[in-house]
Structures are given as C-alpha cells and as structure tokens.
C-alpha cells in the first residue's frame, strides 16, 4: 500500500511527484506510456506564460501567476532550461490597440508584474524582424520559455532521488475503492493506494469517471507546430503572440531554449485522443498566419513538424479542476490541464501536495534533496569545461550527434537515468534534434542502446512499443 498513486507522468504528474516527495509519503507514479512526458508535455509551445490571459479569479489565473513566479527557483534547483525572454502580444490593426489595453488591465487584475504597452517604434526596435504590419504590443517581461519534456524528466528524476517510484507501460484500466483507499489495476498488476492523484491529461476524465458520479469530459484539441533549425532562434528574442480578434487567432513565433524557432500552434477540436498526425492544411495555416507578423521568413529552415493534443474540458466547467473530488475522498484531481498547464505545474504541484499531505497527515522530510543535476552537455560547456569533462570522462570527447554536438558520455548518462528508446535519448540529450534529424546519429544511438541494454538492435524502439526501427538482420 502506497500513500499516493499518481496516474500520469506528464508535467503535472511529475511535478506533483517531486513536491509529494518532500513529505513522508510513499509515492508511486503509474504511466501508461514508456517514458515521462509522453502526452501533451511532449508537444506544446514550451511557454511560461506571464498570466495576463486567464480570466481573473479562475484557477487558470491563480496557478499561472504563482507557477510563473516559481519557475526561476525550480529551474535553478532542477537545472532545466528556463529563459525569461519576455512575451510580446502584437496587433496588426490600430483598431485593436484597445484590445491590448484590456489585456494589460486583466494582467494587472491577475497580479502580473512588469508589463508595458509598446508603440510601433518601441516594438520594432525590440524585434526588428517583425513585419511593419505589427502596430503595437503588450510586453510581458515575466513571460518565458522552457523545455517541457526536460522539465518533466527533471521532476521525475528528482522525485525518484527523494524516494518516489515509477512504473511505466502501466495503463490504468480499473480502480476499485477498498478499505482505506483504492485498488488500481494497471498493466496487469494491482496496486493499492491510500490516495490517487489523477494527472492523466487527456484521459483524466476517464480516470475521474471510474470513481466519481460527477462526470467530466475532455475533448482533445489539436495544436500543430513547425520547427526551424537551431540557428533560427536568433530571428527573435521574445515570444511573439498575436492578439486574438474576431477575425481569428494567430500563431506564436517563438525561439526555444535550444536556439530553434517554432511557428504554431493551430487549434482544432478533435475526437481522437491518439491522433498526433500533422496535416498539410495545418502547415499551410501556420505559414500563412506567421507571415502576418513576419513577412518573408525563410522557408528552407524547417526541420520538423509535430502535433500536440491539449486536454480541453468540455463537460464539468471550463477551468482547471484541481483538488479533492467532492464525492470521492482520497481522489485528488488535476483535470483539464491545458494551457497554461505547463506554467501552472509547479503551483498545482505545490497546492495538491499540501492537500494530500494534510489528508494523509504526513510531515515534511528533513532530508529532502531539492537539487537535481542536469546531464552536463558538451554543447553548452566552455572549452575549459570541455577539457575538464574529457579529462574526467574521455567519452565526453566522442561526439555522437554532430548537429547538436552531443557526446557519448551524455548518451550513456541518459540511458543510466532511464532512457530506453531512441526518442528517450533524444529528449534527454538533444541527439537527433539537429538539422539532419538523426540521419547520421540515429544508427549510432541505436547501436549504443542495444549495447548498453544488452539487447538485439531489432528490439530497440524509436518511441512507443511497436516502433521498432529495424525489422531483422540481413540474410
């Protein structure tokens, strides 16, 4: 019997695991997929929102602003990338300038610090690549960018260091209430837990509805993105939003923490919680919308496209559902966590872990280790640090991924920390995320995985079970 079973190890579940591991609690994480960050956490904008957007008084507003404030500390403790690059919300018509003012006012109401309204000149001197069509902007200086999957993995690693346990490939299929808690069937095993933290993202409605008579319903909302190479981030310093108008919603143009640049997302309701395919229409929409703020952008810099699914609540409210389910003592929900869910994760985790600790009567540990060291990356080291790293571990001198300058030492460390697939290594090290998209390093990563895991190369997966890269030996 564990004290808390967390269902779902995306950013919400992983951040909660980290915060719960501050307490004298047995924490078990159950994840349907084979790695952290397998759902919405893997494919989103990576924006740490300032908090001007959400309706005042909502959970979204509350957790957003608090989450934003927690990021600098969390990023320091967990060593995941976070840059407070600032957000610009631009408008393309002088008639929309009052809209910016309204957004500013809402930000003030939500308690967002450091906002400023910019006129055309101020805007273009900040971001010279914006098209002349951009007439003014709201500048939210606390807006930032992060790497969502690295943040999620960092939370998981830190929670594990502090005693949490995780089980992957364990989709929850049944939950029964029993004396003193719940019996959870996941991946052919039954786990017993005093409390459940439901962080199942797109499936958080299904998990909740297994126990509660107050149902929720989540509809996946598709968001497609197009990503440019790792030098394109230099085109913009800040994240560019477009003020939504009756004419529609624009797309973001944002640098990433790794120097790439992306355009997107689209926003389309879907019925399929598994369909992360990209579409020709989505790509065309993104390119058209991006051109409204950035004319003549280079079309030959794209290296990949992807689609994320947001968990949009359509039955049971239109806000984040965070806290104890009214009719099921011991069930704690984090349901409908769409944007600004990534920003809110630290705040939701802080809040839910307090509630669960109080429910279980658990006290904080004295020996909680808040620090999680990142995998030291060759790419970001100074030459002196590189010399030192290679002296300590010569494998730092063996570069596997040329595009992103990832060394064998980093790949091995990623595997030691739990990467089991080519994409798992990619998300932990960036190997394969460069201009050639793994054309050169893919076969080498596969070989290293097979060697380190002691299995046949044909068993190595790209990502999910069934995604084997090789089908067999040659004759």
């Amino acid at each position, binding site marked *: 019997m564990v004290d808390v079973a967390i269902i779902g190890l995306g950013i919400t579940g992983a951040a909660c695991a980290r915060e719960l591991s501050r307490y004298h609690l047995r924490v078990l994480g159950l994840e349907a997929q084979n790695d952290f960050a397998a759902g919405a956490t893997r494919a989103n904008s990576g924006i740490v929102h300032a908090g001007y957007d959400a309706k005042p008084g909502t959970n979204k507003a509350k957790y957003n602003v608090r989450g934003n404030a927690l990021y600098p500390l969390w990023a320091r403790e967990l060593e995941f990338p976070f840059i407070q690059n600032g957000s610009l919300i631009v408008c393309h018509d002088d008639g929309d300038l009052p809209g910016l003012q309204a957004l500013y006012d809402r930000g003030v109401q939500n308690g967002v610090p450091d906002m400023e309204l910019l006129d055309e000149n101020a805007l273009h001197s900040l971001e010279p690549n914006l098209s002349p069509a951009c007439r003014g902007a709201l500048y939210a200086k606390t807006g930032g960018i992060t790497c969502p999957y690295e943040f999620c993995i960092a939370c998981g690693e830190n929670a594990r260091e502090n005693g949490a346990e995780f089980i992957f490939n364990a989709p929850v299929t049944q939950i029964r209430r029993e004396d003193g808690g719940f019996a959870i069937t996941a991946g052919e095993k039954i786990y017993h837990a005093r409390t459940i933290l439901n962080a199942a993202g797109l499936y958080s409605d299904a998990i909740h509805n297994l126990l509660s008579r107050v149902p929720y319903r989540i509809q996946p909302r598709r968001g497609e993105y197009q990503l440019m190479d790792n030098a394109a981030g230099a085109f913009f310093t800040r994240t560019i939003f477009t003020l939504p108008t009756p004419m529609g919603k624009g797309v973001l143009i944002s640098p990433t923490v790794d120097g790439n640049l992306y355009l997107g997302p689209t926003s389309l309701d879907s019925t399929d919680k598994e369909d992360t*395919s990209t579409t020709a229409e989505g790509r065309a929409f993104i390119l058209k919308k991006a051109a409204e703020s950035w004319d003549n952008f280079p079309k030959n810099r*794209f290296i990949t496209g992807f689609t994320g699914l947001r968990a949009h609540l359509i039955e049971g409210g239109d806000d984040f559902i965070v806290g104890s389910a009214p009719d099921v003592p011991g069930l704690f929900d984090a349901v409908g966590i769409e944007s600004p869910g990534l920003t809110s994760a630290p705040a939701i985790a802080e809040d839910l872990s307090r509630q669960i600790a109080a429910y279980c009567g658990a006290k904080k540990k004295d020996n909680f280790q808040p620090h999680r060291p990142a995998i030291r990356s060759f790419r970001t080291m100074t030459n002196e640090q590189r010399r030192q790293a290679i002296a300590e571990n010569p494998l730092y001198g063996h570069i596997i991924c040329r595009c992103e300058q990832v060394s064998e030492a980093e790949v091995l460390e990623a595997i030691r920390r739990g990467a089991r697939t080519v994409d798992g290594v990619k998300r932990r090290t960036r190997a394969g995320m460069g*201009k050639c998209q793994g054309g050169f390093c*893919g076969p080498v990563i596969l070989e290293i995985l097979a060697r380190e895991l002691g299995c046949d190369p044909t068993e190595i997966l790209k990502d*999910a079970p069934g995604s084997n890269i090789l089908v*067999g030996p040659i004759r």
Partner: protein
Amino acid sequence: MLHYDVAVIGGGPSGMAAALAASKEGASVLLLETEPRLGGILNQCIHNGFGLHIFKEELTGPEYAHRFIRQIQDSPVEVLLNTLVLDVSPGRQVLAVSKERGLLEIQAGAVVFSTGCRERPRGAIGIPGTRPAGVITAGAAQKYVNIDGYLPGRECVILGSGDIGLIMARRMTLEGAKVKAVVELMPYSSGLARNIKQCLDDFGIPLLLSHTVVEIHGKNRVDAVTIAKVDDNLSPIPGTEEIIPCDTLLLSVGLIPTVELATKAGAELAGSQVRVDQHFSTSHPGLFICGNTLHVHDLVDYVTEESTVAGQFAAAYAKGARPADGREIPIQPGEGITYTVPQRLTGESFRENITLRFRTRRVYKQARLVLSSGGKTIASFKRPVMAPGEMQTLVLKPELLNSLGESLSLHVEE
C-alpha cells in the same frame, strides 16, 4: 597548439584527394575524420560504378576509398580519426575534439573543408501524417543494411529518385524486401539513367513521376503511405490519391552541403553554396572547399579531380603564394542554369584549362549551351540531352578565358 601547413576537414574521397595533393606539393598536412576509418560515405556504397574516369575500371565504393586510403598510408599525411572539428576561426585555427586527445587546437596555413553533405529530412519537406518508426533517409537505411547488417523494413516506398534512392531500391530488393514504388515529385528523375535501368527496370519497380507522398500512416510503425499525382506547380491533385500499404518510407529528397563550419569561418555563400574561384578558394583567404561540401556530385571521380585542385592551391597558399591582384570575373548562371562551380574566376591571365561544372534547371533536348561576356556570345556548345540529375561540364580554354570581359554568363538555348 599544433601547426600544419594544411588542415583538411573530412576524410571521405574529397578530403583524401585534397590531402594527398597538398602533401605532394610539399605541405605538411593533417587530415581530420569523425569516423573510425577513412572513406566517408563511400564505405557504405557497396555498389559498383565508381572510378571509371580516374581508374578506367568500375569499382565499388569501399574499393575506390581503399585505393586512396592506401595512398594516404604511404604518404606523409597525418590522420586523426574519431576526431570531430567543432570550429574553424577566420584566422584558420581549427578546434577539434576526440576521445583520445581531448580538445585539440591546430593552427593551419590553409584549411580545406570537405565535410560532405547531409540528407534532407522529412520535416524539411513537411510530409504530413503520423510520425512513426519506418520513415528514414535512404542514406541511413544504406548504413543499417551495408555496415550494420540490419534491414530497416520489408515493404518499402521510396520518395525521391535521386541516385541513393535508386541504389537503395535495388539493395533492399536483393536483401529480400519488396520495393513497391519509387515516387518522384518532378516530371523527370534526378538520378542517372543507368541507375533507373539497372536498379528499377531490371526488377520491375515502378517509377512514378510527378507524384508525391501526401500522407504517412501508422501509429508506431509505418503501415501505409498515401501518394498523389502533382500538377505543374507540384501541388497534389485532389482525387488522385492512392494508398500503398508498406512498413517503410525511404527518403531520397535531396542532399544539402554541410557549409556551416566554412561559413562560420568567414566563407561567403552564393545562393546556398559556398562561393569559390577556379582554385576552390572561398571568399575568405586561406579557406578552401571541395567535394559535396561545395556542390553535390553524381560521380566521385569528379570529386577527386576537384579536390585535387583544392589541395594543390591550399598547399600553395600555406606556403605563401597569394593570388595576384588580378581581375575577378563573376560567372552568372543564366536561363536554364541552376548554378556553376566555380562561381567566379580570378587572376590576370589564364594559362590552363578551367573546368566549369553546373546543372540545368530542367531536361533539355538538342539544346545549346551559350557562354557570353559583356552581352556578346563568345562560345556555344551543342548538347543532345541535359537533365538536372546529370552534372554538366564545360572545359574553358585559355584563349577563351583571356578574351573575357568583366563578366561571364552561361545559359541554355533551345
């Protein structure tokens, strides 16, 4: 800090030829290679067809490489394997890294960039659909099969009819896989005619011109692709879609020279290529570039030829020779010409032949190549057939070169 007259970056056919040529000129040469052996991509090109020009016989890739590896071994060229060059400064300082030696700094008198090219990935052309395993570039597939000994799929569709795609169609077939089709966006193949014959026709593999892949299907592994016909603007025509069940999509959709090191060091681009003169000298003194890093070749023999010239002039530069402050004659690619190499000529007077290599924008039959200078035609050459997939060559004689005005342009007339 190590000191060499010439540092050659990349030990494929281009780098080996440049290193040997520089060494023959008496330069001290360091050849840096990322992989544990010399030869570059030739090592995985186990098919024949290499060396007809240089050796007058048909060799396989590894055999062609072997001939140069042996020469390197017998030469004073110093080789560092397992060594990746991270950076080259405008002052020709090379920063490299290896497991054995850690960070290495090399001051070179001249630097030759011969780092080859990379394959254009799926994302660059934005093929819609799911993102399963089984979508790989033809070159990566070639490595899996020929070097690692594993098959990346059993039922393939190949997008792109460049030579690697054609070669892999045959290779997969001989390994027992079924190649269902080679799909080509353009109305003509970008591969060599003989490869279409011996890699596709011989095995009854259909080549679908003016078609493309419009969607990839399959959650974890590819289970089908949808193809469609394209119109004259290369846009898919609605209603022409056809689903082909398969477990693999091999991409042979273009090779991109890896120019990043050279441009960071100061070499200027002309379009997407590094700009060179007839000595393969970039716009930045002391930096030379050759092989597929400069422009993508069909034939390795020409890589060897060009890189030999690059190596010779790199050696000369390192030993103090400076190009005379002569004229600079830009070469303009005119109507029908995609690019030329070199893109400019330098020097006061010309004593030797200069080979001009270029590609045409489309297929031309019974056309003429016209060289003009100052608006006047100075020479023209008949060509029965020219196609974008086949690199064209013109040899310019000193008489012609010395009669040039301020510029030179090349175009096609039908």
